[in-house]
């Protein structure tokens, strides 16, 4: 019974993550900061939800599925390389940072955003076979602090509501 419930919850979360990463394409953040790879990272809210309420393995599986399906629905192979490396780096770092109890969801979210950026830059360096792409890293990291705080804020509000609804973090 428990596993069926978890499985269906994962499926709903996957759909939610895909919908969020699709929707955020229409938010013209790149007019504000014209760099490739700049985005709000709303799907990370779902990743954090999985991380805090279901566990690390579920979060990692969710990110992998989201990246694969995201590529099928319109990201393409190049997009897959970027989202998969970025996403995996983010989950791994967030899973580690979550264990540090002095960090709240805000800190974890900001570090996750940074890990995502670094992963993406590494993928870009491999793909373009060049070190120069790393010139984007400083700006991406600074933008990541703001978007990370924003997603952290949303995650905090969401978690509060979930806990009020008697769903407890693991």
């Amino acid at each position, binding site marked *: 019974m428990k596993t069926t419930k978890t499985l269906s919850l994962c499926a709903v979360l996957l759909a939610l993550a895909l919908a969020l990463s699709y929707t955020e394409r229409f938010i013209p953040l790149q007019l504000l900061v014209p760099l490739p790879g700049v985005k709000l990272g709303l799907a990370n809210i779902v990743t954090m939800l999985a991380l805090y309420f279901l566990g690390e393995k579920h979060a990692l599986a969710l990110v992998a599925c989201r990246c694969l399906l995201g590529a099928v629905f319109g990201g393409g192979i190049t997009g897959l390389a970027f989202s998969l490396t970025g996403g995996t780096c983010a989950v791994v770092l967030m899973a580690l940072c979550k264990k540090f109890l002095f960090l709240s969801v805000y800190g974890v979210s900001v570090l996750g955003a940074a890990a995502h950026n670094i992963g993406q830059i590494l993928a870009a360096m491999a793909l373009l076979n060049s070190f120069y*792409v790393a010139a984007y890293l400083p700006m991406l*990291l600074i933008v990541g602090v703001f978007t990370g705080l924003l997603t952290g804020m949303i995650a905090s509000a969401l978690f509060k509501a979930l806990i009020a609804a008697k769903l*407890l973090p*693991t």
Partner: protein
Amino acid sequence: MRDGKREIEQMLTFRRGDFIALGIVLLLALGSGLLFFLGTGEKQQITVEICRNGELIDVFPVTQDRRITVEGDYPMTVIVEDEAVWVESSGCPGQDCVHSGRIYTSGQVIVCLPNRVEIRLVGGVPSDVDMVVG
């Protein structure tokens, strides 16, 4: 793991410890930024390099005004004028390269990912700096 009400409360509110996370990320940004932009400004020696798929396809000094069409999946037009470089137009879906605007100091790049094209300004920086970042 976090059953206590107080622990959950702490998990959900911005805490002093989070400043450590912010600090680390900002330091990383500053550090990587310094690596790239330290010692720029010697305009005479700056060279424009255009790469496609990691291969150098064009190299010339930034002082030469040019208008280049880069072939590829999405042809793009690159302008070099008054020691600045920018992408005037591109057939790519994202248009990030066009929105990137002008670059004019060494270490700056314009990347068009859909085209796998990279336009960079090099020279005027100590040559060993470029390799540290990896």
